[in-house]
């Protein structure tokens, strides 16, 4: 299907593409996490790739099985060309500290909540994310529940009801429009980055 995209990536980035494989129509490239955002930018902007649709970003914890412990997995699709690709980057040490990778929000805005979820569940820190806080769990929660070293039956103490008069909206001004809020509520140019 889109082996051409893999060939393009290899010719453009060379040694930063660690390995590739294509199986059953799924094309995967394991890339250098330092070049994560540059590769994403290339995949979006290059007319032969034209990955206009951000599908998913998540992480896998290979605790005790491989040395960069986490694998951040990104799925992309091109609506124009109808092909898709999967990118992986391996980050983090065995203790689960310094799990850092570049945020893709500057490339696709849709990555925002996905990266927040990934941070919430795995503790992957996305550098350059505009608003990296927990999205599913509550702020008092300690630890990252989907890491393999989090005890499966561990429960945390109950929280008090949070009474916040000026409640934080779940998303900012640049993260889509809720119903009823019109673009003319904001000065021109402020509603987009």
């Amino acid at each position, binding site marked *: 299907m889109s082996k051409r995209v893999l060939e393009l990536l290899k010719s453009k980035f060379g040694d930063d593409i660690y390995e590739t494989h294509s199986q059953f129509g799924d094309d995967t490239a394991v890339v250098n996490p330092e070049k994560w955002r540059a590769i994403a930018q290339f995949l979006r902007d290059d007319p032969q790739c034209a990955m206009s649709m951000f599908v998913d970003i998540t992480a896998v914890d290979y605790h005790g099985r491989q040395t960069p412990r986490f694998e951040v997995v990104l799925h992309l699709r091109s609506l124009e060309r109808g092909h898709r690709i999967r990118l992986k980057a391996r980050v983090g040490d065995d203790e689960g500290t310094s799990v850092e990778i570049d945020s893709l929000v500057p490339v696709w805005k849709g990555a925002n909540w996905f990266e927040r979820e990934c941070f919430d569940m795995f503790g992957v820190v996305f550098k350059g994310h505009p608003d990296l806080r927990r999205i599913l769990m*509550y702020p008092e929660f300690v630890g990252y529940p989907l890491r393999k070293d*989090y005890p499966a039956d561990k429960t945390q103490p109950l*929280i008090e*009801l949070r009474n916040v008069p000026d409640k934080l909206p779940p998303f900012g001004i640049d993260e889509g429009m809720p119903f009823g809020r019109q673009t003319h509520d904001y000065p021109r140019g402020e509603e987009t980055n």
Partner: protein
Amino acid sequence: MGEVNSGGAGTTIQVLEGSETGFATTRFDALLNWARKYSLFQYPFITACCAMEFMAMASPRFDMARFGAEAPRFSPRQADLLWVVGTISQRQAPALKRIYEQMADPKYVFAFGTCASCGGFYDNYTTLAGIDKVVPVDVYVPGCPPRPEAVIDGLLLLQDKIARGDRTPAIVKPRRDPTVHAGNLVRLGKKSTAT
């Protein structure tokens, strides 16, 4: 002069027939509890798949209205009976507690299904292991989901408890006790060498 035993705490209602109209005497709290048990205004706190079973139970086929419990109130301030139907997460627990606190006395809590009763099979980081960690429960109805008959059993049990003024927690027992009928259960897992 007739005598009617209302059950419960040995209260007898005496009906005196002296005129065309007649009158009855009873204890005041027995009368009050009798009124309470047939006018349960309910607040449904419904979060998960047990909701389907709750809807089936509230609809005419099983007809909760027979027991005076047909009026849902979507404000806890007007409700007597809190139905907790479904899984409650750790994050939602303070909201449930606040809802309970907003209800006016007398108030009763009904744990509908296994998840509300004890957390069910959600033994993990996100689920509250039973709503009795945050609110006191009057009647537990286990089941995943419980049959409407079991829920009606629970409702009648609650009415009985209200009539008796009893606030200890009660459980609707399964029709077939698994500890008694364990021999009939299918055994899973490895074949034992003993047989």
